[in-house]
């Protein structure tokens, strides 16, 4: 069996686990995948978060991708960072840079096993701030300067590709080079508030081609979180697994401990369980009905007969779901244009599904309604994110004995 088939059947533990520590955020990016803004009062406590780290260590999850919200606004963020690293769970965290002053940058430069990813969605302030809010470009630049000055080894600059910034790819690369950083570009998903702006911001078909060509020509040292695998159907496969890893090698733990199939799928339909339940995260990962279902062979549905199905595997589950397309049909950004046809055929008859998890400051509070809490130990179990697989460097399909990944 090829390695990629093992991945389809799921692993003992995730390879790429995203853990969003808080829904609180100082920004209000228009495309926020988790509709963040306000802290959720049910957020995992410091002790509970450490319990999750213990479990990840036991399961040999070698590193986690920490995000939010803005994770660094949690007062115990630095404590959790150290705890995690001390327990053999390396940390890659995403930040808008708000807390990365000179002192923190120096602290990070002294810390092993930590990767920092600064979000930037425009190579110029006007493009960036249009999406991420006024002042956010300056904040990111200051953080990158502080990291460079402190001698922090190779931070990443993480860019969500939009209609407005595809033309800036070379400029992003120049910014990364200037700060001694590595560029990481990922796909805009219609998840969270991203659904509200997807029509306006997702790259046009011509831009997708441009993006693909750029990656093939200049993408050698550029990370993609394996998020553009739907573009592999253009021809040469992009480096990576080229497979939807949701629930198979990827999942998300959200700030209140809910476990979703992927960071881009915060919706009841993709909720597998909660780390507060009796079996903890391991039980959810290994035995939840949803994850077992996602690990069963997929048919390919309407895409089955397409000659490119082997390269794109039908694309991104979350992108289809939140644009109201069937999960076994084409990706909305299918390079052959079948997604656009499918989108046009929706005809507004049924609105696309919307997540009921919304912490936007503009949203009504407590949108999911009160949650029953039993008194005593633990909390009740509740009825049920390339991410993405971070930067797999080599083809997983080759028949060799060993595959490097990065």
């Amino acid at each position, binding site marked *: *069996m090829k*390695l990629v088939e*093992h991945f389809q*059947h799921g*692993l*003992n*533990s995730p*390879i790429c686990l995203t853990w969003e520590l808080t829904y609180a955020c100082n920004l209000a990016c228009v495309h926020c995948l988790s509709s963040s803004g306000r802290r959720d009062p049910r957020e995992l406590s410091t002790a509970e978060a450490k319990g999750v780290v213990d479990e990840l260590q036991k399961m*040999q999850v*070698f*590193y986690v991708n920490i995000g939010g919200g803005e994770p660094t606004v949690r007062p115990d963020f630095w404590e959790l960072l150290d705890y995690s690293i001390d327990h*053999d769970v*390396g940390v890659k965290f995403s930040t808008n840079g708000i807390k990365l002053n000179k002192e923190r940058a120096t602290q990070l430069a002294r810390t*092993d*096993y930590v*990767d920092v990813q600064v979000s930037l969605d425009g190579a110029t302030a006007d493009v960036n701030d249009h999406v991420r809010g006024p002042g956010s470009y300056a904040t990111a630049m200051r953080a990158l300067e502080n990291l460079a000055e402190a001698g922090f080894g190779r931070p990443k600059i993480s860019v969500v590709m939009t209609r407005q910034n595809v033309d800036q790819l070379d400029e992003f690369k120049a910014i990364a080079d200037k700060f001694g950083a590595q560029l990481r570009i990922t796909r805009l998903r219609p998840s969270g508030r991203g659904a509200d702006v997807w029509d306006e911001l997702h790259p046009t078909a011509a831009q997708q081609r441009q993006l693909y060509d750029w990656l093939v020509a200049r993408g050698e040292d550029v990370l993609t979180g394996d998020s553009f695998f739907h573009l592999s159907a253009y021809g040469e496969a992009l480096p990576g697994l080229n497979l939807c890893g949701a629930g198979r090698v990827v999942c998300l733990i959200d700030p209140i401990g809910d476990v979703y199939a992927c960071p881009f799928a915060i919706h009841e339909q993709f909720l597998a369980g909660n780390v507060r339940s009796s079996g903890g995260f391991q039980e959810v990962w290994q035995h939840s009905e949803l994850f077992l279902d996602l690990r069963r062979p997929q048919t390919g549905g309407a895409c089955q007969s397409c000659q490119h199905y082997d390269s794109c595997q039908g694309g991104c589950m979350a992108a289809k779901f939140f644009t109201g397309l069937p999960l076994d049909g084409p990706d909305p950004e299918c390079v052959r244009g079948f997604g656009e046809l499918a989108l046009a055929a929706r005809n507004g008859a049924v609105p696309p599904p919307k997540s009921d998890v919304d912490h936007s400051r503009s949203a009504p509070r407590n949108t999911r309604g009160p949650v029953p809490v039993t008194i005593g130990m633990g909390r009740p179990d509740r009825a049920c994110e390339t991410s993405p697989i971070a930067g797999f460097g080599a083809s*997983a399909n080759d028949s*060799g*004995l*060993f*595959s*490097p*990944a*990065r």
Partner: protein
Amino acid sequence: MALRPESFGALVYHFGTRRLSFLKTSRLVEVVTGLERHPDVHAAIEAAGVEEAQRPAYLRALSGLAANGTIEKRHAEGGRR
């Protein structure tokens, strides 16, 4: 370096280089874990019962792991670790 057993073999992770690699057969896992008990790579390969015809593939796999820093040359004895 840490090994995590999986159905295909194992994931191997090096905390220093932050490199994640996949060992795609359980025999390769045996070879890699045996490296520290044996004087050199050939002894580890033999001890794991690798067929002679397969030896070049295993040597290639080990040199791949060495190239990305997951395993390294043992200095004192001149073997690999």
